[in-house]
């Protein structure tokens, strides 16, 4: 399909029709102080050959690292077929369908995505995706408050990803919704159900339950969900989709399961990239579907009785509900979801479980090897999925610097977000790591912390 932009004549004709002299006049309402007149970082137009060379040079600056950083975005093997298929023109050039029903292929793919995510989470319904995991949590908070009707406070454990909490707070604060922090046990690394008693009552709309939590530790999800239900709150699960292949899905947590499930979809076939694009997923129980934001694809039959796909429950969305829509988001992350759908279809339930098991095994093996180094200990006693926190007697920044000099990205410093943990680092190992990778990491850590104490200031 040719893409022909409007010509100067077209532009003149359109401006004349609406009685405006220049395109810039259309942006009159934006104060001059907010306008970006020059973009010094963007060079003038250059040829494709020059762009290719420039981007190669910049890509090379990234280097090649042995990566043990997780913390919300995870390095997984992506079968070559995933992006081979996802970048076919039929998928790659499609955006969110505006003339939705004319794009049956896109709708079918989204329907299959929704079906797989519904199955993975054991929930009733999934939307066609949101921007990312953090904004999906914010949407879940708004949704829970709408569904609950009377309370405008939501309990959020300190074990939820700090960025998710920051994003959610930014999005919900102007609706006078309070996010109230729930402390965690500094020994075990998860929320202690008994510690929730001080929040008992009906003043909260929901309890957020991360699984695994930001420390990689598994939360006592059954107790937490049952407690929320008992106290008249909804449960919002924040889950890692890979982990669901081997952990009990949120729909099967105690007391009828979670009410809303959100998370970051990146681990499902989307490569690591600074700033994304990633995608958020959201699932819920049927009774809350009318409070759910985002697009939902349904399957139906046409006038001749043939199966077809359609956007459904659109009265929730802003093109119909206007200011009372469930969200200002009326799109989905089409391309990233396409990759996730293909990834899940290629791996199947068994393949995804093998990814999860291999990641878990590698994380345990690495934790064991690192903790064999004198002075290195696990921060928490709770069981983990594929990430864990270690503490040691040296500044984390120095440790990471020394490891980086050996080509190793050792993990994520916890110092800024969790100063109470001292010199602590979040380390992740997925199925992409081999035994010799783990050994190399442990050997360097041992050398760095060794008798010379070179990294200590």
């Amino acid at each position, binding site marked *: 399909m040719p893409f022909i932009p409007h010509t100067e004549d077209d532009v003149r004709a359109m401006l004349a029709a609406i009685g405006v002299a220049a395109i810039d006049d259309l942006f009159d309402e934006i104060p001059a102080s907010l306008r970006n007149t020059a973009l010094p970082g963007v060079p003038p137009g250059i040829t494709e050959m020059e762009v290719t060379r420039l981007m190669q040079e910049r890509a090379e600056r990234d280097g090649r690292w042995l990566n043990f950083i997780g913390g919300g975005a995870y390095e997984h093997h992506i079968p070559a077929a995933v992006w081979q298929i996802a970048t076919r023109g039929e998928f790659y050039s499609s955006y969110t369908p505006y003339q939705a029903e004319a794009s049956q292929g896109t709708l079918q793919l989204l329907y299959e995505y929704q079906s797989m995510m519904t199955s993975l989470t054991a929930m009733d319904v999934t939307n066609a995706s949101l921007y990312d995991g953090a904004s999906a949590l914010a949407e879940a908070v708004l949704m829970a408050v709408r569904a609950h009707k009377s309370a405008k406070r939501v309990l959020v454990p300190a074990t939820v990803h700090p960025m998710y909490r920051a994003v959610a707070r930014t999005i919900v604060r102007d609706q006078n919704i309070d996010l109230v922090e729930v402390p965690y046990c500094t020994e075990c690394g998860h929320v202690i159900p008994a510690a929730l008693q001080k929040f008992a009552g009906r003043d909260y709309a929901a309890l957020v339950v991360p699984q695994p939590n930001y420390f990689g530790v598994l939360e006592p999800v059954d107790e937490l969900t049952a407690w929320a239900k008992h106290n008249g709150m909804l449960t919002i699960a924040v889950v890692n989709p890979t982990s669901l292949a081997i952990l009990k899905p949120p729909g099967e947590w105690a007391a009828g399961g979670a009410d809303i499930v959100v998370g970051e979809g990146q681990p499902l076939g989307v490569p690591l990239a600074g700033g994304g694009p990633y995608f958020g997923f959201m699932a819920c129980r049927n009774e809350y579907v009318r409070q759910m934001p985002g697009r939902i694809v349904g399957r139906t039959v046409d006038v001749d009785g043939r199966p077809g796909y359609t956007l459904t429950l659109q*009265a929730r969305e802003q093109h*119909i509900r206007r200011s009372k829509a469930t969200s200002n988001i009326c799109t989905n992350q089409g391309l990233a979801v396409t990759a996730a759908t293909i990834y899940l279809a290629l791996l199947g339930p068994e393949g995804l479980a093998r990814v999860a098991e291999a990641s878990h095994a590698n994380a345990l093996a690495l934790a064991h090897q690192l903790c064999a180094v004198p002075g290195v200990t696990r921060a928490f006693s709770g069981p983990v999925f594929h990430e864990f926190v270690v503490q040691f007697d040296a500044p984390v920044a120095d440790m990471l610097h020394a490891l980086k000099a050996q080509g190793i990205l050792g993990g994520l410093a916890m110092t800024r977000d969790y100063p109470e943990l001292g010199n602590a680092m979040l380390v992740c190992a997925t199925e992409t790591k081999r035994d010799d990778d783990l050994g190399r990491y442990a050997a360097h850590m041992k050398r760095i912390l060794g008798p010379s104490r070179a990294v200590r200031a």
Partner: protein
Amino acid sequence: MTTPADLKYTKSHEWIKQEADGTVTVGITHHAQELLGDLVFVELPAVGRKLKQGEECAVVESVKAAADVFAPVTGEVVAANADLADAPEKINEDAYLAWMFRIKPTAPGELAGLLDAAAYQAIADADRH
């Protein structure tokens, strides 16, 4: 369909029936359901909820449209028609039979300000051109 003469109406397309026990029953008009099309969902106010006249208190949703229903008078919700949850199409079938909720008015004077059938009919006709 004619606009029943024994009911009161609002500009926002609610009908109001004054019951013998002093409560009022509320629904949406035939004209309103015609504008919306086939209804697929109705959200009703909780019993016990206190409403102010003009407050949004219910939602009617069709396949591609949604509308708020407003409290025609101030008062407390004393009943909601749970039958509509499974069968919102009853409003399409007979809008004046498919009541939505019942209010015990606390400002009965407001009733006098509602439209009669002729006045509402004129609004509906003007809508249709």
